[in-house]
């Protein structure tokens, strides 16, 4: 990634910078909560039902908070930056839908020996979103 693309991706108003920092913070907190729900029941509280329910509720609550912050982030962008985000999200959703549906069938049709996992799809969609954002910034630099 060259310096100009990075500069364009960081080029924003003070409000956008503030929104970006907030979004980063909420994303990290949500990722930690996801890890907590994934590993906590087995490794931390021995499948205690109430603690697991509380962890799941916190995870959902933080996820909803992250969506709200992401919406504010989008509203704070200018029209070109919003278009870049929309294109990247469309790419991510499209790739996720097309490849995700094929990936889900791979075990049924005996092409892979393991069960497809949703985290694999999430990782692929996240990476596609990042690639889409970089390509968008390169296109309009």
């Amino acid at each position: 990634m060259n310096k100009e693309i990075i500069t364009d991706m960081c080029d924003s108003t003070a409000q956008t910078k503030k929104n970006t920092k907030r979004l980063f913070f909420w994303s990290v907190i949500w990722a930690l909560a996801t890890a907590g729900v994934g590993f906590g029941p087995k490794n931390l509280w021995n499948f205690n039902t109430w603690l697991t329910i509380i962890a799941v509720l916190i995870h959902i609550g933080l996820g909803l908070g992250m969506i709200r912050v992401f919406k504010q982030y989008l509203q704070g962008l200018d029209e070109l930056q919003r278009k870049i985000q929309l294109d990247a999200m469309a790419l991510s959703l499209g790739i996720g839908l097309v490849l995700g549906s094929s990936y889900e069938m791979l075990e049924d049709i005996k092409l892979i020996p393991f069960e497809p996992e949703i985290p694999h799809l999430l990782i692929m969609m996240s990476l596609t979103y990042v690639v889409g954002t970089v390509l968008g910034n390169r296109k309009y630099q």
Partner: protein
Amino acid sequence: MKNRLKLLRAERDWTQANLADQLGVSRQTVNAIEKGKFDPSLPLAFKVARLFDLSIEDIFQDAPTTPA
């Protein structure tokens, strides 16, 4: 769509960042509009026209598409 944004900006000795600040957009957006890579929305085009005290048609010209 063609435009005279770069010329008008240069006449006033403004940088892309100056113009972006006055329009409330990023420098990247001003740059993309100047290069004809991105067409602004109607509200932004009006904002640009007001800033330069010109009509939209004085700044932006529709580039005719060649028939297929």
